[in-house]
C-alpha cells in the first residue's frame, strides 16, 4: 500500500485503557498489548485494530466516541497519557497519528474526567450539559424568513474574522477535561463573544451571557481560576481573550441586567 513513509517501522505498544460497564459500575484500567502498529495510522485506527482483535477473541471492544475523524465534529475525546486529545497541540484525537509515539511505549487512555460529564461506558462520556448551556442562550432570536438582505449588515473584516475564530469551537469538552476545576468557561465564552462581537448578536449580548453562565453553574462545572490550561489543550485554539470578553459582558450584565 501507499504508505506516505514506506520506511516507517511498525511498533509494539502497551495500552492501559479505562473500562467501565456503565454509569453505575466502577471502572478500572485494563492492560492490552498491541503489536505491529503502523506509524501512519491515526490514533483511532489504532483503537480500531485493537477492537477487531478483541472481537475476534470474543471480548467486548472498547467503546469510544468518534464520527467525522477530521477534527471538526467534536465527537472524539480521550485523555491520552494525561493530556486531553493527546500530546500534539492543536490536534483532536482523531487527527493524531501514531508517528508521534514510539515503539515500546505504554499509552494510558482515559475518558474526560468531570462531574458534569458522567461516564456512559468505557471512554464515552455524557456531554449533554454543553447542549443545555447552548439552549440557555447561544443564539440570536430570529425566526426563519423576514430578515434583511445579507449585505445590509456590513461587518468590518477584522471583526468578522475574530468572530469566526471564536465560532470554530467544536464543543469537544477538552477544555473542561484539562481544567483542574472542570470549568466550562472557555466553551461558554467562545459562543458569548462570537455573538457579542457581531451586530446581529449584540442586542441580546448581556442576557445571553447571564443565562449561559447561570446554566453552566447549574450543570456543576467548576469556577474559572484563570490557569489557561483550557486554551493550551483546545484543539482549535480558542483564545483566552474570549473569557475576558465574557467576563466583561457578564459583569456589564450584572450591573444593568436586562433579565427582568
Amino acid at each position: 500500500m501507499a504508505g506516505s513513509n514506506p520506511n516507517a517501522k511498525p511498533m509494539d505498544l502497551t495500552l492501559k485503557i479505562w473500562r467501565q460497564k456503565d454509569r453505575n459500575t466502577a471502572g478500572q484500567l485494563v492492560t492490552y498489548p498491541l503489536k505491529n502498529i503502523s506509524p501512519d495510522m491515526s490514533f483511532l485506527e489504532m483503537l480500531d485494530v485493537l477492537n477487531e482483535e478483541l472481537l475476534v477473541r470474543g471480548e467486548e471492544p472498547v467503546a469510544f466516541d468518534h464520527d467525522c475523524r477530521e477534527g471538526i465534529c467534536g465527537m472524539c475525546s480521550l485523555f491520552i497519557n494525561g493530556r486531553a486529545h493527546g500530546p500534539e497541540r492543536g490536534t483532536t484525537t482523531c487527527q493524531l497519528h501514531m508517528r508521534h509515539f514510539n515503539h515500546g511505549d505504554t499509552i494510558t487512555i482515559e475518558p474526560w474526567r468531570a462531574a458534569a460529564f458522567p461516564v456512559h461506558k468505557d471512554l464515552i462520556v455524557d456531554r449533554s450539559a454543553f447542549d443545555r448551556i447552548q439552549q440557555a442562550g447561544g443564539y440570536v432570536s430570529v425566526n426563519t424568513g423576514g430578515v434583511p438582505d445579507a449585505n445590509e449588515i456590513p461587518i468590518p473584516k477584522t471583526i468578522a474574522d475574530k468572530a469566526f475564530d471564536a465560532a470554530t469551537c467544536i464543543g469537544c469538552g477538552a477544555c473542561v477535561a484539562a481544567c483542574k476545576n472542570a470549568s466550562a468557561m472557555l466553551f461558554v465564552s467562545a459562543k458569548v463573544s462570537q455573538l457579542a462581537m457581531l451586530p446581529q448578536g449584540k442586542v441580546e449580548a448581556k442576557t445571553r451571557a447571564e443565562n449561559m453562565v447561570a446554566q453552566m453553574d447549574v450543570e456543576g462545572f467548576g469556577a474559572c481560576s484563570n490557569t489557561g490550561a483550557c486554551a493550551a489543550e483546545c484543539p482549535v485554539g480558542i483564545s483566552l481573550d474570549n473569557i475576558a470578553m465574557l467576563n466583561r459582558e457578564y459583569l456589564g450584565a450584572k450591573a444593568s441586567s436586562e433579565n427582568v
Partner: protein
Amino acid sequence: MILDSKIPEGALAEKWDKHKFNVKLVNPANKRKYDIIVVGTGLAGASAAATLGELGYNVKAFCFQDSPRRAHSIAAQGGINAAKNYQNDGDSIFRLFYDTIKGGDYRAREANVYRLAQVSVNIIDQCVAQGVPFAREYGGLLANRSFGGAQVSRTFYARGQTGQQLLLGAYSALNRQIAYGKVKMYPRTEMLDLVMVDGKARGIVVRNLITGKIESHSAHAVVLATGGYGNVFFLSTNAMGSNATAAWRAHKKGALFANPCFTQIHPTCIPVSGEYQSKLTLMSESLRNDGRVWVPKTVEIAQRLRKGEITVNDIKEEDRDYYLERKYPAFGNLVPRDVASRNAKLMCDEGRGVGASGLAVYLDFADAIRREGQPAIAAKYGNLFDMYAKITDENPYEKPMRIYPAVHYTMGGLWVDYNLMTNIPGLYATGECNFSDHGANRLGASALMQGLADGYFVIPYTIGDYLAQTPYDKVSVDHPAFKEAEQNVKATTDRLLAIKGNRTVDDFHKALGLLMWDYCGMARNAEGLQFAKHEIRKLRDEFWQNVKVTGVNEELNQTLEKAHRVADFLELGELMVDDALNRNESCGGHFREEYQTPENEALRDDENYAYVAAWEFTGVGNEPVLHKEELKFENVKLTQRSYK
C-alpha cells in the same frame, strides 16, 4: 403505481410562488395540534425542525450522535452557492438553475432545481441574521469565490469550515426552539423502523443507544433528513456513522428509492495509505482554483518515481503532463468533479499514477506560490494544508499534494415529489437523503444549499398543505402497527446477536465496500455489475450466518449499531448495482464503459433514459420493480456536456 411529481402548472419562474399561494394553510392556533417527527439534525433536519417549531408545530427531533451539532454536515468545507450576484459577474437565478441542471447531466427535475436557485438567496440572508461568520471583504460586505466548475463567483464560505458554521447556525435556531419547548430533542437515538397506519406514515421505532431500549414515537408526519449512503463503499469522505438505515427501512415499508447508482466520486481526496484505513479525507475542491493537476508524461518516469529512484521535484517541467489543462483548455483544472475523477483514474490505469501504490495524481501549488507568495496561499488554504500535513507527514508547500478520487456524495435517495413527500403519504425526505436536485452529478457547494433550502424554505410550506388535510387525532403508540414494528426491530436485533459467527461487522463492510468500489464505482460495465450482484448476495448470506456481534441489546453496544447499518448496506448495495445495470448509458457520475464518446466522455442516451429510476422493494433477494418518472425539459436544451 403512477409516479406523480406534482409539479405545479405555469411558467418555470412562477411555479413556486403560485404553489405557495395555492397550498392549504394550517391556522396558527391549530398548528400546536400537530406533531411532526424530524429524523436527522444536519443542515436539512436542524433547519426544518427549528422552522417547524417556530411556526408552532410540536416537533420531535432525533440524531444518533451525542449532540445535534455533530451531524455530518459539520464537515463540509468549501462553501454554499447562492444566486445573489453580489459580484455583478453575470450570475442570476436562471444561471444557477442552468448550471445545476447541466452539471447534473440533465437527469434532474427542472421545477425543483429552479426553486432551489430561487430560495438560495434567502438562505444567505437567514444565516447572516443568525450570526454565521461568512468570509468578508475589507469593505465589510460578503466575499465570494468561484467553486467547482462554475464560471461565476457565487460561493459563500467561512474559511474551509462552511458546513460547521452553517450547521452551528441551524443548531442555534434549533436550540432556541428546544428552550421554548417546541422541539424535543432525542440525541443518541437511532431510527430503526417507520410505522404506517392506514397507508400513511405515522411514526417511528427507535433504539436508545445508551440503554438499548426500543421505543415508539407517534406523529402526524415524519421527515427523514438522515443524509447520504456513501458509506456503502466503507471508505468514503462521510463520517463514520453516516448510514442508510432510516431511508432503507422506509424503502422496505414502501418508499421508492430513486437513482441509487448516482454516486459522486470526489477528485481531491488524500489517497488510501494502508489496510487499516477507516475513512478518507477530502481536500476541498477550492484547491483546484490554484492547484495544477499533473502526472508524469511517461510510464517510465512514473515507475522510477514509485520505486523511489527519483523524487517529484526531479521531474522536469517538460516531463509533466497537466492533463486537465491539456484536454479541457476552457475549464482546465476546474472541470466538474465527475470529469476530474474519471481522468485521474484514466491516468493511473495507464500506469502514470504516483505514490507507492500508483493510485494518486499530483495537485501542485508551486506556480501559485511563486505568483502570489506563500503567505497568500496560506491565508486561502492554510487549514487544508495543515490537515494534509498532519495526515501524510508531508509539507504541501514544498512538495505537491498527492490526491485520488473518493466516494463523497450520493445523488440518489428516496424518491420525492415537488413537495418533498415520498410516495408514502406523510413521509418526507430532505437534504442528501432524497434524490431531488442534483441529477447524475452534484455541483460543488450545492448540497449545503439544498439542505438548507429544503429545511428552512420548502418543507415548512409543503408540510402544512398535507397537515391541513389531516385530522388532529393522534395515533397511540399502543396501536398494533407500532407494536408490530417494535417486534420486528427486536427480532432483527435478536437475530444479529444470536448468530455469534466468526467474521466481524467491519470485515463484512470492507468486503462490500471493495466490491462496490471495483464494480460500481468510477467506471462500471455490465459484466462487472452482474458479478458484483452475485458476490453481494453471497456476502449477505454469509453475513446472516457468520457475523460476530458481541454483547447484549440492553447496553451501549457500538458493534450492534454497526451491524444494523451494515445489514442494510448489504441490501442497498445490490439495488445500486441493479440500477447501474438498468441504466444503459453514461451520465454524470454514472459511467458505463460501454457507453462513451471516442474521447472517453460520458455518452448519454436521452431518447431512452431521460427518466428518474424509482425502485420498489419486493423482498430481500427478489428483483425490485422499476417505476419511471419521465423528465421533461422545457427550459433548457439537452446538449452533450463539453468542458473543452
